[in-house]
Protein backbone atom coordinates (compact mmCIF):
# COMPACT_ATOMS: atom_id res chain seq x y z
CA UNK A 1 0.00 0.00 0.00
CA UNK A 2 2.70 2.46 1.03
CA UNK A 3 4.68 1.46 -2.02
CA UNK A 4 1.72 2.27 -4.27
CA UNK A 5 1.33 5.73 -2.77
CA UNK A 6 5.03 6.37 -3.28
CA UNK A 7 4.81 5.30 -6.91
CA UNK A 8 1.84 7.60 -7.51
CA UNK A 9 3.66 10.56 -6.05
CA UNK A 10 6.62 9.92 -8.34
CA UNK A 11 4.40 9.60 -11.35
CA UNK A 12 3.11 13.11 -10.75
CA UNK A 13 6.55 14.51 -10.16
CA UNK A 14 8.70 13.05 -12.89
CA UNK A 15 6.61 10.66 -14.91
CA UNK A 16 8.84 7.92 -16.21
CA UNK A 17 11.54 10.20 -17.48
CA UNK A 18 15.06 8.84 -17.55
CA UNK A 19 18.19 8.93 -19.66
CA UNK A 20 21.00 11.44 -20.04
CA UNK A 21 18.77 14.41 -20.96
CA UNK A 22 16.60 13.87 -17.89
CA UNK A 23 19.74 13.62 -15.73
CA UNK A 24 21.10 16.89 -17.13
CA UNK A 25 17.75 18.62 -16.63
CA UNK A 26 17.74 17.56 -12.97
CA UNK A 27 21.02 19.30 -12.10
CA UNK A 28 20.80 22.04 -9.45
CA UNK A 29 20.77 25.69 -10.50
CA UNK A 30 22.53 26.78 -7.31
CA UNK A 31 26.24 25.97 -7.17
CA UNK A 32 27.23 27.92 -4.07
CA UNK A 33 27.52 27.21 -0.38
CA UNK A 34 24.29 26.86 1.59
CA UNK A 35 24.23 28.36 5.07
CA UNK A 36 22.17 30.79 7.13
CA UNK A 37 19.18 29.65 5.10
CA UNK A 38 20.56 30.87 1.79
CA UNK A 39 23.13 30.53 -0.99
CA UNK A 40 26.56 32.15 -0.91
CA UNK A 41 29.58 32.23 -3.18
CA UNK A 42 32.91 31.12 -1.77
CA UNK A 43 34.56 34.17 -0.22
CA UNK A 44 37.67 33.52 -2.28
CA UNK A 45 35.58 33.32 -5.46
CA UNK A 46 37.26 30.01 -6.28
CA UNK A 47 35.31 27.27 -8.04
CA UNK A 48 35.90 23.61 -8.88
CA UNK A 49 34.90 21.99 -12.16
CA UNK A 50 32.54 19.00 -11.98
CA UNK A 51 32.57 16.30 -14.63
CA UNK A 52 30.63 13.13 -15.28
CA UNK A 53 32.90 10.11 -14.75
CA UNK A 54 30.94 8.19 -17.37
CA UNK A 55 31.42 10.57 -20.30
CA UNK A 56 33.83 13.29 -19.21
CA UNK A 57 31.18 15.91 -20.00
CA UNK A 58 31.20 19.09 -17.91
CA UNK A 59 28.50 19.40 -15.28
CA UNK A 60 29.47 22.98 -14.46
CA UNK A 61 31.23 24.20 -11.35
CA UNK A 62 30.78 24.33 -7.60
CA UNK A 63 32.08 26.74 -4.97
CA UNK A 64 35.46 25.82 -3.52
CA UNK A 65 34.98 26.62 0.14
CA UNK A 66 37.87 27.34 2.49
CA UNK A 67 38.37 28.20 6.16
CA UNK A 68 36.66 31.61 5.81
CA UNK A 69 33.52 29.98 4.41
CA UNK A 70 33.59 27.29 7.09
CA UNK A 71 33.76 30.05 9.68
CA UNK A 72 30.68 31.75 8.25
CA UNK A 73 28.75 28.46 8.03
CA UNK A 74 29.62 27.44 11.58
CA UNK A 75 28.65 30.88 12.86
CA UNK A 76 25.26 30.62 11.15
CA UNK A 77 24.73 27.16 12.60
CA UNK A 78 25.63 28.37 16.10
CA UNK A 79 23.07 31.15 15.77
CA UNK A 80 20.43 28.55 14.96
CA UNK A 81 21.23 26.31 17.91
CA UNK A 82 19.18 28.07 20.60
CA UNK A 83 16.12 28.03 18.39
CA UNK A 84 16.42 24.48 17.08
CA UNK A 85 17.21 22.76 20.36
CA UNK A 86 14.09 24.29 21.86
CA UNK A 87 11.75 23.20 19.09
CA UNK A 88 9.40 20.63 20.58
CA UNK A 89 10.73 17.16 19.78
CA UNK A 90 7.55 16.11 18.01
CA UNK A 91 7.72 19.24 15.86
CA UNK A 92 11.33 18.41 14.93
CA UNK A 93 10.08 14.94 14.02
CA UNK A 94 7.30 16.38 11.87
CA UNK A 95 9.81 18.53 9.97
CA UNK A 96 12.10 15.55 9.39
CA UNK A 97 9.15 13.57 8.06
CA UNK A 98 8.43 16.42 5.63
CA UNK A 99 12.05 16.27 4.47
CA UNK A 100 11.65 12.50 4.02
CA UNK A 101 8.53 13.02 1.95
CA UNK A 102 10.26 15.57 -0.29
CA UNK A 103 13.18 13.18 -0.88
CA UNK A 104 10.75 10.35 -1.65
CA UNK A 105 8.75 12.46 -4.10
CA UNK A 106 11.92 13.58 -5.86
CA UNK A 107 13.76 10.28 -5.70
CA UNK A 108 14.00 9.87 -9.48
CA UNK A 109 15.40 13.36 -9.90
CA UNK A 110 17.96 12.95 -7.10
CA UNK A 111 18.93 9.54 -8.47
CA UNK A 112 19.38 11.09 -11.90
CA UNK A 113 21.83 13.62 -10.49
CA UNK A 114 23.86 10.96 -8.68
CA UNK A 115 23.89 8.85 -11.85
CA UNK A 116 25.40 11.54 -14.02
CA UNK A 117 27.64 12.99 -11.28
CA UNK A 118 29.03 9.97 -9.40
CA UNK A 119 28.60 7.25 -12.06
CA UNK A 120 26.29 4.90 -10.14
CA UNK A 121 23.38 3.47 -12.14
CA UNK A 122 20.19 5.55 -12.16
CA UNK A 123 17.79 2.73 -11.26
CA UNK A 124 19.86 1.59 -8.28
CA UNK A 125 20.18 5.18 -7.07
CA UNK A 126 16.39 5.54 -6.76
CA UNK A 127 16.76 2.99 -3.97
CA UNK A 128 19.48 5.16 -2.38
CA UNK A 129 17.06 8.09 -2.21
CA UNK A 130 14.41 5.82 -0.69
CA UNK A 131 16.90 4.63 1.95
CA UNK A 132 17.59 8.27 2.83
CA UNK A 133 13.83 8.81 3.22
CA UNK A 134 13.43 5.82 5.49
CA UNK A 135 16.39 6.93 7.63
CA UNK A 136 14.75 10.35 8.03
CA UNK A 137 11.45 8.70 8.99
CA UNK A 138 13.20 6.24 11.31
CA UNK A 139 15.01 8.91 13.32
CA UNK A 140 11.94 11.16 13.30
CA UNK A 141 10.26 8.31 15.18
CA UNK A 142 13.07 8.18 17.76
CA UNK A 143 12.96 11.80 18.97
CA UNK A 144 11.33 10.75 22.25
CA UNK A 145 13.96 8.06 22.82
CA UNK A 146 16.87 10.33 23.71
CA UNK A 147 16.14 9.59 27.34
CA UNK A 148 18.19 9.84 30.47
CA UNK A 149 17.94 7.81 33.64
CA UNK A 150 16.67 8.30 37.13
CA UNK A 151 18.94 7.17 39.95
CA UNK A 152 17.55 6.16 43.36
CA UNK A 153 19.56 8.01 45.94
CA UNK A 154 18.22 10.24 48.69
CA UNK A 155 20.39 12.70 50.60
CA UNK A 156 22.91 10.28 52.08
CA UNK A 157 25.65 8.48 50.29
CA UNK A 158 28.56 6.32 51.31
CA UNK A 159 31.12 8.37 49.48
CA UNK A 160 31.25 12.09 48.98
CA UNK A 161 33.23 13.28 46.02
CA UNK A 162 34.23 16.85 45.72
CA UNK A 163 36.00 17.15 42.42
Amino acid at each position, binding site marked *: MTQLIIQDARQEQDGNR*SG*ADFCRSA*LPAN*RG*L*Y*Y*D*GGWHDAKSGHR*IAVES*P*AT*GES*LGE*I*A*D*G*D*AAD*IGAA*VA*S*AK*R*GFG*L*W*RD*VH*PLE*RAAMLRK*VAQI*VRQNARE*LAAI*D*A*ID*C*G*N*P*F*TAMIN*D*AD*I*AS*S*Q*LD*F*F*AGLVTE*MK*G*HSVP*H*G*TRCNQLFDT
Partner: protein
Amino acid sequence: MGPGAINFSIREPLGVIAKIIPFNHPIMFSAGKIAAPLAAGNLVIVKPPEQAPLSTLRFAELIDGLLPAGVFNIVTGAREAGEALAAHRDVAMLSFIGSVPTGRAVMRAAADGIRPVLLELGGKNALIAFADADPSAVAGAMIAGMNFAWCGQSCGSTSRAFIHAAIYDTVLEHLHRGCAAIRPGLPTEPETKMGAIVSRSQFERILAMIRTGHEDGARLLIGGGRSADPVLANGFFIDPTVFVDVTPEMRIAREEIFGPVLSVLRWDDEAAMVRAVNALDYGLTCSIWTNDLAAAHRTASAVEAGYVWVNEVGRHFPGTPFGGYKQSGIGREECLEELISYTQEKNIYIRLPQPNAGKVAA
Protein backbone atom coordinates in the same frame (compact mmCIF):
# COMPACT_ATOMS: atom_id res chain seq x y z
CA MET B 1 13.99 6.92 45.17
CA GLY B 2 15.38 7.52 48.65
CA PRO B 3 14.17 10.37 50.83
CA GLY B 4 14.88 14.04 50.39
CA ALA B 5 16.29 14.16 46.90
CA ILE B 6 15.76 13.17 43.31
CA ASN B 7 18.53 12.39 40.84
CA PHE B 8 18.07 12.03 37.13
CA SER B 9 19.91 12.58 33.88
CA ILE B 10 18.80 14.16 30.65
CA ARG B 11 20.24 13.99 27.14
CA GLU B 12 21.02 17.19 25.29
CA PRO B 13 22.26 17.89 21.77
CA LEU B 14 25.94 18.64 21.24
CA GLY B 15 25.68 21.61 18.88
CA VAL B 16 27.19 21.90 15.42
CA ILE B 17 27.91 18.52 13.82
CA ALA B 18 30.24 18.15 10.84
CA LYS B 19 29.09 15.46 8.39
CA ILE B 20 31.78 14.60 5.85
CA ILE B 21 30.21 12.52 3.09
CA PRO B 22 31.89 10.05 0.71
CA PHE B 23 31.40 9.82 -3.04
CA ASN B 24 29.85 6.35 -3.29
CA HIS B 25 26.30 7.16 -2.13
CA PRO B 26 25.97 10.96 -2.19
CA ILE B 27 22.24 11.54 -1.72
CA MET B 28 21.74 8.50 0.52
CA PHE B 29 24.31 9.87 2.95
CA SER B 30 23.71 13.62 2.54
CA ALA B 31 19.97 13.34 3.11
CA GLY B 32 19.85 10.20 5.27
CA LYS B 33 22.73 10.81 7.66
CA ILE B 34 21.51 14.23 8.78
CA ALA B 35 18.46 12.55 10.30
CA ALA B 36 19.95 11.39 13.61
CA PRO B 37 21.83 14.58 14.53
CA LEU B 38 18.88 16.80 13.56
CA ALA B 39 16.39 14.59 15.42
CA ALA B 40 18.55 15.01 18.54
CA GLY B 41 18.42 18.80 18.22
CA ASN B 42 21.82 19.43 16.65
CA LEU B 43 22.74 21.53 13.61
CA VAL B 44 24.61 20.00 10.70
CA ILE B 45 27.20 21.21 8.24
CA VAL B 46 27.43 18.77 5.37
CA LYS B 47 30.60 18.57 3.32
CA PRO B 48 29.56 16.66 0.18
CA PRO B 49 32.12 14.71 -1.84
CA GLU B 50 33.98 16.98 -4.25
CA GLN B 51 33.71 14.25 -6.92
CA ALA B 52 29.89 14.17 -6.71
CA PRO B 53 28.45 17.21 -4.91
CA LEU B 54 25.43 18.03 -7.06
CA SER B 55 22.65 15.87 -5.54
CA THR B 56 23.37 17.43 -2.13
CA LEU B 57 22.94 20.91 -3.63
CA ARG B 58 19.66 19.87 -5.28
CA PHE B 59 18.52 18.44 -1.94
CA ALA B 60 19.11 21.86 -0.35
CA GLU B 61 17.09 23.51 -3.12
CA LEU B 62 14.23 21.09 -2.51
CA ILE B 63 14.05 21.58 1.26
CA ASP B 64 14.97 25.28 1.28
CA GLY B 65 12.81 27.14 3.81
CA LEU B 66 11.55 24.04 5.57
CA LEU B 67 14.03 24.05 8.45
CA PRO B 68 14.98 27.19 10.42
CA ALA B 69 18.00 29.09 9.06
CA GLY B 70 21.31 27.61 10.15
CA VAL B 71 19.97 24.13 10.99
CA PHE B 72 21.09 22.51 7.72
CA ASN B 73 24.17 23.82 5.92
CA ILE B 74 26.39 22.73 3.05
CA VAL B 75 29.98 23.66 2.38
CA THR B 76 31.37 22.30 -0.87
CA GLY B 77 35.01 22.24 -1.75
CA ALA B 78 38.14 20.18 -1.90
CA ARG B 79 40.34 18.80 0.84
CA GLU B 80 40.98 22.22 2.38
CA ALA B 81 37.27 22.70 3.13
CA GLY B 82 37.09 19.34 4.90
CA GLU B 83 40.20 20.07 6.92
CA ALA B 84 38.96 23.52 7.94
CA LEU B 85 35.60 22.05 8.96
CA ALA B 86 37.23 19.31 11.02
CA ALA B 87 39.54 21.82 12.69
CA HIS B 88 36.93 24.46 13.56
CA ARG B 89 36.73 24.90 17.33
CA ASP B 90 32.96 25.49 17.34
CA VAL B 91 32.20 22.18 15.65
CA ALA B 92 31.12 19.91 18.51
CA MET B 93 31.47 16.52 16.83
CA LEU B 94 32.94 15.06 13.66
CA SER B 95 31.10 12.38 11.74
CA PHE B 96 32.88 10.87 8.77
CA ILE B 97 32.32 8.03 6.32
CA GLY B 98 35.27 7.16 4.10
CA SER B 99 38.78 5.77 4.08
CA VAL B 100 40.90 4.74 7.07
CA PRO B 101 43.67 7.31 6.41
CA THR B 102 41.18 10.19 6.21
CA GLY B 103 39.35 8.82 9.25
CA ARG B 104 42.63 8.92 11.13
CA ALA B 105 43.12 12.57 10.10
CA VAL B 106 39.58 13.42 11.23
CA MET B 107 40.24 11.77 14.58
CA ARG B 108 43.49 13.72 15.02
CA ALA B 109 41.60 16.96 14.34
CA ALA B 110 38.96 15.89 16.86
CA ALA B 111 41.66 15.19 19.46
CA ASP B 112 42.84 18.81 19.38
CA GLY B 113 39.44 19.96 20.61
CA ILE B 114 38.63 16.84 22.73
CA ARG B 115 35.62 16.19 20.52
CA PRO B 116 33.77 12.94 19.86
CA VAL B 117 33.84 11.22 16.49
CA LEU B 118 31.57 8.83 14.64
CA LEU B 119 33.60 7.01 12.01
CA GLU B 120 32.47 4.48 9.44
CA LEU B 121 35.60 3.56 7.55
CA GLY B 122 36.80 0.98 5.10
CA GLY B 123 36.55 -2.76 4.90
CA LYS B 124 38.17 -5.77 3.31
CA ASN B 125 35.24 -7.91 4.25
CA ALA B 126 35.15 -11.69 4.15
CA LEU B 127 32.53 -13.95 2.66
CA ILE B 128 33.01 -17.45 4.07
CA ALA B 129 31.45 -20.51 2.44
CA PHE B 130 31.50 -23.89 4.18
CA ALA B 131 31.54 -27.24 2.38
CA ASP B 132 27.80 -27.79 2.84
CA ALA B 133 26.74 -24.50 1.24
CA ASP B 134 24.92 -24.50 -2.10
CA PRO B 135 27.57 -23.49 -4.70
CA SER B 136 25.09 -21.61 -6.85
CA ALA B 137 23.76 -19.60 -3.90
CA VAL B 138 27.33 -18.89 -2.77
CA ALA B 139 28.30 -17.60 -6.22
CA GLY B 140 25.18 -15.42 -6.26
CA ALA B 141 26.11 -14.01 -2.85
CA MET B 142 29.68 -13.32 -3.98
CA ILE B 143 28.31 -11.24 -6.85
CA ALA B 144 25.66 -9.48 -4.75
CA GLY B 145 28.17 -8.85 -1.96
CA MET B 146 30.58 -7.13 -4.34
CA ASN B 147 28.07 -4.37 -5.12
CA PHE B 148 29.11 -4.38 -8.78
CA ALA B 149 26.28 -1.87 -9.44
CA TRP B 150 28.51 0.83 -7.93
CA CYS B 151 31.67 -0.94 -9.07
CA GLY B 152 32.45 -2.36 -5.63
CA GLN B 153 32.86 1.19 -4.30
CA SER B 154 31.36 0.29 -0.97
CA CYS B 155 32.87 -0.09 2.49
CA GLY B 156 30.66 -3.11 3.18
CA SER B 157 31.55 -5.06 0.02
CA THR B 158 32.66 -8.65 0.65
CA SER B 159 35.77 -8.42 -1.50
CA ARG B 160 37.55 -11.45 0.01
CA ALA B 161 35.74 -14.75 -0.53
CA PHE B 162 36.98 -17.77 1.46
CA ILE B 163 35.49 -20.82 -0.30
CA HIS B 164 35.83 -24.36 1.06
CA ALA B 165 37.89 -26.65 -1.17
CA ALA B 166 35.01 -29.14 -1.50
CA ILE B 167 32.85 -26.64 -3.44
CA TYR B 168 35.58 -24.34 -4.79
CA ASP B 169 35.60 -25.44 -8.44
CA THR B 170 31.80 -25.58 -8.72
CA VAL B 171 31.42 -22.16 -7.13
CA LEU B 172 33.92 -20.71 -9.63
CA GLU B 173 31.92 -22.11 -12.57
CA HIS B 174 28.77 -20.41 -11.31
CA LEU B 175 30.72 -17.26 -10.50
CA HIS B 176 32.21 -17.02 -13.99
CA ARG B 177 28.79 -17.40 -15.57
CA GLY B 178 27.27 -14.79 -13.26
CA CYS B 179 30.02 -12.22 -13.75
CA ALA B 180 30.03 -12.69 -17.51
CA ALA B 181 26.42 -11.48 -17.53
CA ILE B 182 27.32 -8.18 -15.83
CA ARG B 183 28.72 -5.46 -18.03
CA PRO B 184 29.12 -1.77 -17.23
CA GLY B 185 26.89 0.68 -19.04
CA LEU B 186 26.06 4.37 -19.08
CA PRO B 187 24.78 5.12 -15.57
CA THR B 188 22.14 7.49 -16.89
CA GLU B 189 20.30 4.68 -18.72
CA PRO B 190 17.60 2.98 -16.64
CA GLU B 191 18.51 -0.57 -17.68
CA THR B 192 22.18 -0.22 -16.66
CA LYS B 193 23.16 -2.60 -13.85
CA MET B 194 26.78 -1.48 -13.35
CA GLY B 195 28.09 2.07 -13.58
CA ALA B 196 31.36 3.99 -13.74
CA ILE B 197 34.23 4.47 -11.29
CA VAL B 198 33.83 7.90 -9.70
CA SER B 199 37.07 9.56 -10.83
CA ARG B 200 40.27 9.14 -12.81
CA SER B 201 42.37 8.77 -9.67
CA GLN B 202 40.17 5.95 -8.32
CA PHE B 203 40.13 4.35 -11.77
CA GLU B 204 43.92 4.34 -11.99
CA ARG B 205 44.28 3.11 -8.43
CA ILE B 206 42.05 0.12 -9.18
CA LEU B 207 43.94 -0.73 -12.38
CA ALA B 208 47.20 -0.58 -10.40
CA MET B 209 45.79 -3.01 -7.81
CA ILE B 210 44.76 -5.37 -10.63
CA ARG B 211 48.40 -5.31 -11.81
CA THR B 212 49.58 -6.34 -8.34
CA GLY B 213 47.19 -9.30 -8.48
CA HIS B 214 48.98 -10.53 -11.61
CA GLU B 215 52.42 -9.78 -10.15
CA ASP B 216 51.65 -11.66 -6.94
CA GLY B 217 50.65 -14.76 -8.90
CA ALA B 218 46.86 -14.80 -8.55
CA ARG B 219 44.90 -16.36 -11.43
CA LEU B 220 42.49 -14.08 -13.28
CA LEU B 221 39.10 -15.74 -13.69
CA ILE B 222 37.34 -12.93 -15.55
CA GLY B 223 37.59 -9.21 -16.29
CA GLY B 224 40.87 -7.54 -15.42
CA GLY B 225 40.71 -4.23 -17.24
CA ARG B 226 38.71 -1.37 -18.63
CA SER B 227 35.54 -2.04 -20.55
CA ALA B 228 35.96 -2.65 -24.29
CA ASP B 229 32.53 -1.16 -25.06
CA PRO B 230 33.16 1.79 -27.46
CA VAL B 231 30.18 3.69 -26.00
CA LEU B 232 32.08 3.83 -22.71
CA ALA B 233 35.43 4.92 -24.13
CA ASN B 234 35.35 8.39 -22.53
CA GLY B 235 34.53 7.17 -19.03
CA PHE B 236 36.05 5.22 -16.17
CA PHE B 237 34.62 1.74 -16.68
CA ILE B 238 36.16 -1.52 -15.45
CA ASP B 239 34.62 -4.95 -16.05
CA PRO B 240 33.76 -7.14 -13.05
CA THR B 241 37.12 -8.64 -12.11
CA VAL B 242 37.71 -11.86 -10.18
CA PHE B 243 41.07 -13.23 -9.07
CA VAL B 244 41.11 -16.85 -7.85
CA ASP B 245 43.74 -18.96 -6.06
CA VAL B 246 44.52 -15.84 -4.04
CA THR B 247 46.58 -16.36 -0.89
CA PRO B 248 46.32 -14.28 2.29
CA GLU B 249 49.66 -12.51 1.91
CA MET B 250 48.88 -11.05 -1.54
CA ARG B 251 48.11 -7.31 -1.66
CA ILE B 252 44.73 -7.96 -3.30
CA ALA B 253 43.83 -10.05 -0.24
CA ARG B 254 44.95 -7.42 2.27
CA GLU B 255 44.19 -3.94 0.90
CA GLU B 256 40.83 -2.36 0.29
CA ILE B 257 40.63 -1.80 -3.47
CA PHE B 258 37.27 0.04 -3.49
CA GLY B 259 36.65 -1.22 -6.98
CA PRO B 260 35.03 -4.15 -8.83
CA VAL B 261 37.77 -6.61 -7.87
CA LEU B 262 36.98 -9.80 -5.95
CA SER B 263 39.72 -12.00 -4.45
CA VAL B 264 38.82 -15.68 -3.98
CA LEU B 265 40.76 -17.84 -1.52
CA ARG B 266 40.47 -21.63 -1.08
CA TRP B 267 40.38 -23.12 2.44
CA ASP B 268 40.08 -26.50 4.13
CA ASP B 269 41.40 -25.81 7.65
CA GLU B 270 38.77 -23.82 9.55
CA ALA B 271 41.12 -22.45 12.22
CA ALA B 272 43.61 -21.23 9.60
CA MET B 273 40.79 -19.68 7.57
CA VAL B 274 39.46 -17.75 10.60
CA ARG B 275 43.00 -16.56 11.39
CA ALA B 276 43.35 -15.25 7.83
CA VAL B 277 39.93 -13.56 7.99
CA ASN B 278 40.93 -11.80 11.21
CA ALA B 279 44.51 -10.99 10.20
CA LEU B 280 43.69 -7.55 8.80
CA ASP B 281 43.11 -4.26 10.63
CA TYR B 282 39.69 -4.01 8.99
CA GLY B 283 36.53 -5.48 10.52
CA LEU B 284 33.29 -4.09 9.11
CA THR B 285 31.12 -6.91 7.68
CA CYS B 286 31.24 -10.68 7.21
CA SER B 287 28.95 -13.05 5.32
CA ILE B 288 28.86 -16.73 6.33
CA TRP B 289 27.30 -19.45 4.16
CA THR B 290 26.39 -22.78 5.78
CA ASN B 291 23.37 -24.71 6.98
CA ASP B 292 25.35 -26.15 9.88
CA LEU B 293 23.96 -24.28 12.89
CA ALA B 294 27.02 -24.88 15.03
CA ALA B 295 29.44 -23.77 12.29
CA ALA B 296 27.38 -20.63 11.67
CA HIS B 297 27.34 -19.59 15.35
CA ARG B 298 30.97 -20.58 15.91
CA THR B 299 32.13 -18.51 12.95
CA ALA B 300 29.85 -15.55 13.67
CA SER B 301 31.42 -15.37 17.13
CA ALA B 302 34.98 -15.88 15.91
CA VAL B 303 35.12 -13.24 13.18
CA GLU B 304 36.24 -9.74 14.17
CA ALA B 305 33.58 -7.77 12.31
CA GLY B 306 30.77 -5.47 13.40
CA TYR B 307 28.01 -6.69 11.10
CA VAL B 308 27.62 -10.39 10.30
CA TRP B 309 25.19 -12.10 7.95
CA VAL B 310 24.50 -15.84 7.83
CA ASN B 311 23.13 -17.01 4.47
CA GLU B 312 22.60 -13.37 3.50
CA VAL B 313 24.86 -10.62 2.23
CA GLY B 314 24.97 -6.87 1.77
CA ARG B 315 21.59 -5.96 3.19
CA HIS B 316 21.09 -3.39 5.94
CA PHE B 317 18.14 -3.62 8.31
CA PRO B 318 16.77 -0.46 9.96
CA GLY B 319 17.27 -0.45 13.72
CA THR B 320 20.22 -2.84 13.65
CA PRO B 321 23.63 -1.42 14.62
CA PHE B 322 25.95 -0.97 11.63
CA GLY B 323 29.59 -0.19 12.30
CA GLY B 324 33.11 -1.53 12.39
CA TYR B 325 35.46 -3.47 14.61
CA LYS B 326 39.13 -2.49 14.68
CA GLN B 327 40.09 0.23 12.18
CA SER B 328 36.80 -0.04 10.30
CA GLY B 329 35.29 2.55 12.58
CA ILE B 330 34.02 3.85 15.87
CA GLY B 331 30.35 3.99 16.78
CA ARG B 332 27.19 2.46 15.36
CA GLU B 333 24.71 3.83 12.84
CA GLU B 334 21.19 3.09 11.56
CA CYS B 335 19.96 2.38 15.09
CA LEU B 336 19.05 4.09 18.37
CA GLU B 337 22.75 4.26 19.33
CA GLU B 338 23.35 6.56 16.35
CA LEU B 339 20.84 9.04 17.77
CA ILE B 340 22.33 8.72 21.26
CA SER B 341 25.83 9.33 19.91
CA TYR B 342 24.73 12.84 18.90
CA THR B 343 23.77 13.67 22.49
CA GLN B 344 25.53 14.31 25.77
CA GLU B 345 24.20 13.27 29.14
CA LYS B 346 23.69 15.73 31.98
CA ASN B 347 23.09 14.57 35.55
CA ILE B 348 20.81 16.68 37.73
CA TYR B 349 20.61 16.18 41.51
CA ILE B 350 17.81 18.00 43.29
CA ARG B 351 17.73 18.19 47.05
CA LEU B 352 14.13 18.65 48.15
CA PRO B 353 13.12 20.90 51.05
CA GLN B 354 12.41 18.80 54.15
CA PRO B 355 9.01 19.37 55.75
CA ASN B 356 10.53 19.27 59.24
CA ALA B 357 13.67 21.26 58.51
CA GLY B 358 14.33 24.01 61.04
CA LYS B 359 11.97 22.60 63.68
CA VAL B 360 13.48 21.76 67.05
CA ALA B 361 13.08 18.12 67.89
CA ALA B 362 10.80 17.50 70.85
